[in-house]
């Protein structure tokens, strides 16, 4: 009797997992397979592809400007990663290692600032960028992304820096290392995992961002990949093969990086969430 019940719940569980997996994986599968299918003219043809080809990828990368958009995205993302990593590290050391007036105020401000919707910031940021002649500038866009990714990066790195025992630093100081040397040779290597995770998050922020890139970049030479994707849409019909191939190219690096930080992400979120 119990074995029957057990196998019944086991079957129900397996069924639930199967439904879950097909729901969660279907869009990604459909995207990749549409990019790879020779036809890609209709959904059902693509579902179980008859003929696979790299023609759409070839078309996307070799003809048209998509490669340039990908390069623009990469440039913006790299500037963002380096800039926000550096600034966040300094700020994290300040809030984790020093006690000073306004410390709590600063931390709460950092927290509140990231609740503000981007839709509210895009108008003034556009006017600022326009006044400073920073529209259509990859650096200008990257600087805004640095600001966007900083609050989370500071909060996250703060935990990693705080987890490094103070005694290690004190030992270095006793051995005669200057404070800058201690920061560079002792603290930085020990907090490196945090810096890697935080770099990946900044990368994803910059790579995926849409509304600011859409507003700032009017010159098609300066489109990022997320915005440049719109170029593939015709007035009446859409060539879904190339669109999905290009989407796959945008998604791939994010996917790889994301799965790379998954463990830290899940446990980190949990630690914060469980503490409420």
């Amino acid at each position, binding site marked *: 009797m119990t074995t029957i019940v057990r196998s019944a719940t086991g079957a129900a569980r397996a069924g639930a997992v199967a439904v879950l*997996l097909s729901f*969660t994986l279907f*869009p*990604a599968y*459909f*995207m990749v397979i549409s990019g790879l299918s020779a036809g890609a003219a209709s*959904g059902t043809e693509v579902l179980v592809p008859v003929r696979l080809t790299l023609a759409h990828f070839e078309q996307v990368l070799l003809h048209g400007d998509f490669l340039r958009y990908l390069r623009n995205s990469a440039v913006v993302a790299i500037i963002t990663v380096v800039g926000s990593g550096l*600034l966040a590290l300094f*700020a994290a050391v300040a*809030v984790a*290692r*020093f*006690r*000073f007036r306004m*410390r709590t105020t600063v931390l709460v401000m950092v927290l509140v*600032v990231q*609740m503000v*919707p*981007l*839709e*509210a*910031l*895009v*108008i*003034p*940021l556009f*006017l600022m960028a326009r006044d400073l002649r920073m529209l259509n500038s990859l650096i200008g866009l990257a*600087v*805004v992304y640095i*600001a*966007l990714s*900083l609050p989370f990066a500071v*909060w996250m790195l*703060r*935990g990693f820096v*705080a*987890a490094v025992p103070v005694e290690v630093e004190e030992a270095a100081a006793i051995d005669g290392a200057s*404070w800058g040397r201690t920061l560079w040779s002792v603290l930085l290597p020990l907090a490196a995992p945090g810096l890697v995770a935080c770099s990946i*998050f900044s990368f*994803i922020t910059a*790579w*995926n*961002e*849409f*509304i600011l890139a859409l507003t700032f970049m009017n010159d098609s030479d300066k489109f990022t990949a997320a915005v440049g*994707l719109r170029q593939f849409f015709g007035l009446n019909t859409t060539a879904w093969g190339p669109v*999905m191939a290009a*989407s*796959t190219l945008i998604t791939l690096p*994010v*996917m790889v990086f994301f799965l790379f930080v998954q463990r*830290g*992400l*899940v446990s980190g*979120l*949990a630690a*914060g*969430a*469980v503490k*409420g």
Partner: protein
Amino acid sequence: MARTAVPVRGGPAVSVRPTPTRTSRRRHRAPLRPLLLLAPALAVMGILLLYPLVRVVLLSFQDYTLANVVSGASDYTGLRNYTLLLRDPYLWTVVLPNTVVFAILAVGGTVVLGTLVALLLQSLRPLSRTIVIGCVLVAWAMPAVTGTYVWIWIFDVDRGIVFQLLHGTGLLGAEGHNWFTDRVSFYAIVVLNVVHHGFPFVAVTVLAGLLTVPGELHEAARLDGATAWQRFRHITFPAIRPVFAVVTILSTIWDFKVFAQVYLMPGGAGSNAQVLNLGVWSYIRSFAQQSYGTGAAIAVLLTALLLAITLVYLRVLFGSEELR
């Protein structure tokens, strides 16, 4: 921000590791050092996040159009933008329902599905649990922009897989059906898109909470004859209420300000006035119609709404004594 990974979706307000209290006890001899270390980050955030926030509020009191952008002069009109906005039936019949009803459905769907998936994951063996989590995260890792295009392709009017399946089973004629014109079916697709993208975050966070609930409690309740629902309602839920608070607040904030998921859909960029939400309406008033003052007022309304919701949630879910 687009709704992707944690920080990508706007960044949750959770500290990653608890700060040991003893670490910040020293170094009074260099009082300027922390300020120097903080200065660059604070300057960047102040100039690019805080100042724009102030400026958008100021803009919302101005009649700021293309002429003002060119001349740089400001033209204060007091509360005029707000009175016009609040008297506009379009706000009350179209934009606000689109924003609020959508957010309620999307948050509800995300939290319920995420919780069910977390309970399912909890019942799996460690190896299969890890594999399934990996697959679930694929949905989260998908950028909002490309994810939205995939859903548009799935629901494509002429050649989409949904049309073909419905046509094949005879439920739909050859003329097809445009899912994107009617606002109910339009937002049904947005809900599907947003729930698909958002539930992994809820699932992994709730799962982490579930794993902290002692198994003995469930064992005891089961011996007392409690049903699965009673055990969830009276043991699991109270034990991890803060986790539910966090995922609900974050999902609400994210779902109230979805942008790319609406803007990129056919008609979502302004050609179909029936499907705009607050964020997209603000953007279109500002950048398509060059009425920056009105756009700013809509954006301020959205921000105030988010702020109010966050405060109410915190009070209801944590109780006033826990909130301090």
